[in-house]
């Protein structure tokens, strides 16, 4: 009954989306207010029906109704409740349903809080949003219906893939989707602007908060996924340049570029045509990511060829939306009026540079991700493009970008003074040089790369801070005045400081982890001691334990530093009875921003256990950096200017805060 209701709600949502994708357009053409307002009510109704459908699937999973294929294949009655819920999106059908739910959520938010938008713009935006939604509803209903029944219901389910039975699954996919799908709003606004043939600074001011929200979630989602892979996969890697990861990195790079070009558009009314293109590209990359992950093309081109319905369907969606929007762009972009002038050395110029490097870096990731697929389809040769490729292409492109980051905020709009900015960055440069010198002396004989890279990171952080000091006049005016100025500084300027500093922090973490990571791999028996980076880890005990749906072997280690006991660490190896699969649960001990990491390997016949122990210096900074960036984004989002600024977007912003 619940399954049928959920299915029915989804069909109704499709019907509503079809209405929403046509009627408002006619209304806009005929200038009929009532017809244009249809968009608003259908968007809200659509959200309600999709939410009902999603709730139905969650209910089915929670009460373990194994007569539904999706529940049977991905759940088990013994599974803890939290994983019954998160298992809803731990599979293809459920995660697509989550995808459209979030799409409908964003559409609904625009409908509810977009009262201040010009009526025809809102109608167009919501109609475009509904085109995307209709395509994905059709995809779910035709190829991946999560509500299908089994004729003879089994008693027990097949359980969720054990690797996914982790709290990471509760957070990572929804965050990532909020980011991915959030970019649909900037896409819809871009298409609406192209249809209307009108775009101005107010447009950028409406789009910016939505893009920021999506970007914040995507940043956090990627960081979260990286940390999840780090502790769950058991060998301490945190980024693999895996196509699945690249699929989320590409929209992030394009989205970051979009965020910066929107600033230019809003402040200076320039770069209109480029911003529109970037909005289209960002969402296209989100769609591409969905295609890569969801069509099965990464796992096997063969699987794609034998059961092509899903892959071909998404490919079709991809072609229609990307091809259609780019054609529309080619046709209409010339109608958009030219914007303000600026000299190459200026804030605008710096942001253009930022866009250039970010999109080029994005393009190299694109090539590295899709080239092996293309080659296999065309010649049949199989190759793998791994980390070395990306390190050699992505790295050199990010280097000049990082050097340029501190300069941007210090340059004036229209015409900047590079020399002046450089002078104001003297302090940051000196700090960076000191950092390089100290590290060089400390790690004598080591490679020159790490101290230089950390010096660069220090430059970025110190540069962000000197921008702050510059704005509030620190050391130039009395402290009290400086504090007052700091209070009065727009939140978006604070946001810039935090986000840019976050980039530097993440870079420090990345460099330290990759350069000074120490590793111990060996077989241990009880009371053996493994020395690593000054710590001593003693294997005290090995026990067997039963979990709700698994058995596990738990090893107990005591970690000592200079003979003093710090803590015990208990890595384990779980065997899931239903699937017969094993997972490795790593144990982590955090010391400041560094971590000790133990994961277990096989047990040999003589009772020794293979263990892998890492000491990862400053590894937590890798994820702390993105958190800082996201925090900067949130500060920016709460900026007063975006709340009370030009065409009174007060209401739209209150809505965004609720969405956080």
């Amino acid at each position, binding site marked *: 009954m619940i399954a049928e209701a959920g299915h029915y709600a989804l069909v109704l949502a499709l019907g509503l989306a079809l209405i929403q994708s046509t009627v408002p357009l006619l209304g806009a053409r005929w200038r009929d207010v009532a017809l244009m307002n249809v968009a608003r009510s259908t968007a809200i109704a659509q959200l309600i029906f999709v939410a009902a459908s999603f709730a139905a699937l969650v209910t089915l999973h929670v009460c373990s109704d194994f007569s539904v294929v999706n529940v049977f294949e991905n759940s088990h009655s013994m599974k803890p409740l939290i994983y019954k819920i998160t298992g809803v999106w731990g599979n*293809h059908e459920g995660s697509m349903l989550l995808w459209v739910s979030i799409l409908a959520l964003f559409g609904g938010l625009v409908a509810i809080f977009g009262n201040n938008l010009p009526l025809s713009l809102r109608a167009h935006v919501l109609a475009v949003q509904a085109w995307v939604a209709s395509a994905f509803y059709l995809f779910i209903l035709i190829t991946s219906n999560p509500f299908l029944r089994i004729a003879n219901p089994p008693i027990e389910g097949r359980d969720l893939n054990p690797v996914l039975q982790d709290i990471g699954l509760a957070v990572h996919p929804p965050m990532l989707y909020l980011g991915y799908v959030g970019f649909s709003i900037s896409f819809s606004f871009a298409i609406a602007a192209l249809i209307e043939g009108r775009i101005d600074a107010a447009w950028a001011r409406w789009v910016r908060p939505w893009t920021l929200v999506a970007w914040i979630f995507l940043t956090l989602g990627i960081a979260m996924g990286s940390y999840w892979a780090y502790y769950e996969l058991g*060998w301490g890697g945190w980024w693999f340049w895996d196509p699945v990861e690249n699929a989320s990195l590409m929209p992030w790079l394009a989205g970051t570029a979009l965020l910066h070009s929107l600033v230019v558009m809003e402040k200076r009314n320039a770069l209109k045509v480029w911003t529109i293109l970037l909005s289209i590209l960002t969402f296209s990359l989100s769609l591409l990511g969905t295609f890569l992950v969801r069509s*099965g093309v990464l796992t096997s081109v063969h699987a794609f060829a034998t059961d092509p319905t899903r892959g071909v369907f998404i490919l079709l969606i991809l072609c229609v939306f990307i091809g259609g929007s780019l054609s529309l762009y080619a046709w209409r972009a010339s109608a958009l009026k*030219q914007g303000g002038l600026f000299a190459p050395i200026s804030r605008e110029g710096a942001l253009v540079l930022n866009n250039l490097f970010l999109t080029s870096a994005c*393009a190299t990731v694109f090539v590295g991700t899709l080239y092996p697929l293309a080659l296999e389809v065309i010649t049949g040769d199989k190759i793998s493009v791994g980390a070395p490729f990306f390190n*050699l292409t992505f790295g050199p*492109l990010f280097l000049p970008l990082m050097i340029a980051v501190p300069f941007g905020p210090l340059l004036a709009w229209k015409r900047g003074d590079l020399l002046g900015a450089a002078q104001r960055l003297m302090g940051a440069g000196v700090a960076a040089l000191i950092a390089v010198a100290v590290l060089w002396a400390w790690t004598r004989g080591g490679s020159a790369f790490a101290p230089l890279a950390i010096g660069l990171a220090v430059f970025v952080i110190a540069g962000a801070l000197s921008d702050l000091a510059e704005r509030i006049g620190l050391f130039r005016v009395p402290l009290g005045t400086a504090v007052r100025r700091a209070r009065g500084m727009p939140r978006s300027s604070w946001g810039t400081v935090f986000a840019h500093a976050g980039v530097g922090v993440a870079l420090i973490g990345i460099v330290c982890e990759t350069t000074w990571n120490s590793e111990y*791999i060996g077989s241990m028996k009880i009371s053996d001691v493994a020395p690593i980076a000054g710590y001593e880890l003693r294997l005290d005990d090995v026990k067997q334990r039963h979990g709700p749906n698994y058995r596990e072997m738990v090893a107990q280690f005591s970690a000592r530093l200079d003979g003093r006991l710090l803590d015990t660490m208990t890595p384990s190896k779980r065997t899931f009875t239903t699937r017969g699969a094993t997972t490795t649960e790593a144990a982590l001990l955090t010391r400041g921003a560094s971590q000790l990491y133990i994961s277990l390997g096989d047990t040999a016949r003589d009772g020794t256990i293979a263990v892998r122990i890492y000491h990862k210096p400053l590894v937590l900074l890798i994820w702390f950096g993105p958190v800082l960036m996201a925090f900067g984004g949130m500060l920016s989002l709460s900026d007063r200017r975006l709340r009370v600024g030009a065409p009174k977007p007060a209401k739209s912003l209150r809505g965004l805060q609720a969405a956080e």
Partner: protein
Amino acid sequence: MTRKQRRLTIIGGSLAVLAVAAALVLNAMGDSILFFSTPAMVAEKHIQAGKRFRLGGLVQPGSLVRGDNLVVTFQVADGIATLPVFYKGILPDLFREGQGVVAEGALDSSGVFKADTVLAKHDENYMPKDVADALKKQGRWKDEHGTKPTDGAKAGEIPGASRSAQGTPQPGQGALR
């Protein structure tokens, strides 16, 4: 500065950056791409010792020998030829005799494949994509290895799930893969 000059500056700058990016890509393509081979293809192509590639196939049942200090040796077979593999480190959770495996490394002078990375997917009915395709090409595909596309989609759920065991670390590169 006129609008035209400004535009030329921007376009020139963009082209320069894109050219650099393209050069980087082409350069990296030459050095850091690994080809995939099965044991039969290795025998056929006479891959020289020291050249890195990816070896794929089935772990020959009964061939796995565990030595001291986490040294393992096993044979990789594709039904036509077999190739001995030497590896030092912890094997992935899903490494099993009779199942598909992909190893990354190079041949040594005696014709043994020295692997520094052994990959297996975190899904028990998963056959590494390259192995499955190669076996199919040779007509040695058995349906019990069959993978449904849904399994693949599931495995895509966690980033980097296809990466697993990391052997003797190589500085710089080893930390990432």
